[in-house]
């Protein structure tokens, strides 16, 4: 039975297994370990969050790879961040020997591009060509695909997601249905590919990502007292029924439902913060923390694709955090709020 057909068992206390060494990756893993040493440490983010204003926060980046020159605006910094992200992804593609893994990680941008294109198509806006160029499918072809409804031009995983999203949208004309359909299609594609590759690490990663997305959704629905039930992603360690029970239990009883899972502390902290502060910052931070913890377990791998994948995700998270702090400083948010969010 495949990864989606069978409910995954939680046979670990904190993080799932990550697989063994693959000595074909000795050189690449060593290169990643050396590059990791120049990643931004947490104190830099704390200093940025505590800086008096946006300019001072940006000054902390002046000596590193995100430097954009004195007095750089947020849009200039954004260009630097996007360039760094593209560079990291190109490095990743060069390090990984298996093209299927590269395609899998590039597909994240395909799904994000597709989401935007479908939203534009169903709301009768111009499809345009302003899409991420880091995916497998060229963004400038979306206009042709949607204008002529030639979905067979898309790769199979995108065509399937597009069909599901459009059908679901026209069922009740709810724009959020597009997100649910694409997220579900992406989760299924990720798990199916990870299983096909036989990668224990990727299976664990995608199951954790599905769980974390579901927990965030559950908490949001609980706090906002929404009534959707069919919005959870497939393939996680936590059963869908348990998530639905979480919705019914409400804020106070939520954490207890996760007592036997590794997510207990995260749900407890996130639910308490959401109840007291009316904010989801803590659950977002806790989810990032948990995922980063899983990625950090790849330190035990001396050679293999796991540390390289972990580096890509950690680097993307670093870029996202830089953007988050800079945007928060630009909008004069309270440093405490920023610190509550960053992991």
């Amino acid at each position, binding site marked *: 039975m495949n990864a989606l057909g069978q409910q995954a068992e939680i046979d670990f206390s904190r993080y799932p297994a990550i697989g063994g060494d693959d*000595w074909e990756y*000795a*050189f690449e893993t*060593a*290169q990643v*370990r*050396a590059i990791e040493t120049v990643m931004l440490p947490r104190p830099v983010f704390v200093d940025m969050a505590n800086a008096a204003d946006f300019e001072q926060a940006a000054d902390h980046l002046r000596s590193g790879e995100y430097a954009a020159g004195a007095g750089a605006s947020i849009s200039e910094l954004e260009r630097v961040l996007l360039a760094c992200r593209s560079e990291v992804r190109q490095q990743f593609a060069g390090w990984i020997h298996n093209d299927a893994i590269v395609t899998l990680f590039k597909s994240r941008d395909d799904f994000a591009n597709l989401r935007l294109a479908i939203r534009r198509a169903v709301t009768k806006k111009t499809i345009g060509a302003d899409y991420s160029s880091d995916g497998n499918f060229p963004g400038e072809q979306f206009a042709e695909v949607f204008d002529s409804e030639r979905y067979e031009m898309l790769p199979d995983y995108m065509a399937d997601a597009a069909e599901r999203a459009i059908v679901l949208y026209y069922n009740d004309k709810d724009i959020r249905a597009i997100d649910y359909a694409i997220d579900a299609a992406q989760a299924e594609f990720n798990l199916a590919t990870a299983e096909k590759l036989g990668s224990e690490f990727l299976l664990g990663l995608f199951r954790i990502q599905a769980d974390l997305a579901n927990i965030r959704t559950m908490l949001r629905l609980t706090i906002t007292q929404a009534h959707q039930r069919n919005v959870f992603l497939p393939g996680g360690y936590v059963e869908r029924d348990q998530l639905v029970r979480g919705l019914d239990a409400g804020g106070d009883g939520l954490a207890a439902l996760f007592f036997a899972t590794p997510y207990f502390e995260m749900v407890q902290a996130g639910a308490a913060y959401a109840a007291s502060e009316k904010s989801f910052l803590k659950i977002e931070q806790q989810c990032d923390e948990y995922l980063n913890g899983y990625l950090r377990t790849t330190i035990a791998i*001396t*050679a293999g694709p796991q540390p390289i994948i972990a580096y890509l995700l950690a680097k993307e998270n670093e870029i996202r955090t830089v953007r988050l702090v800079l945007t928060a400083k630009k909008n004069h948010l309270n440093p405490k709020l920023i610190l509550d969010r960053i992991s």
Partner: protein
Amino acid sequence: MDYGMTLALLGAGLAALLAGIGSAIGIGIAGRSAAGVLSEKPERYGPLFVMVVLPGTQGFYGFLGAFMVMLKLNIFGGGLSEGLGTVLGLSVLAACLPVGIAGLFSAIHQGKVCAAGILMAAKRPEMAFKAGVVYAVMVEMYAILGLLVTLFLLLFAIKWPAVAAVAGA
């Protein structure tokens, strides 16, 4: 038919070959890791060099065992005065196996330990010797034990025939 000399030479060959293969694989693993770190941090060449060459010692131990057999067989001085005998040949083959097999496996595993030490040295250079080299030396010990067993067997357990008289002497 007396296969004694053939078996003894096979033993010598295996000692050098197995340990040599182990060393080549071990150095290959450690070398690739070191190259990866050096591509970003060339200033770490010194401490990493030690960890790359450590798995190479097993190859020398194998060579030493093989050389000892060749000396005892008087390969370089005209051979033995009489046939070695199949039983003695088998004994020499058996005596060569500890250094060959211990060398093969210990070198590969030492290469992996060295690779892990190299990765650690990339992040914490102050630990390169304390952990990287010391742990690798612990693996080395078992190759040394294999070499010692081979040497003791060759030197003390085997009754070698007399060497052939050199013509004209």
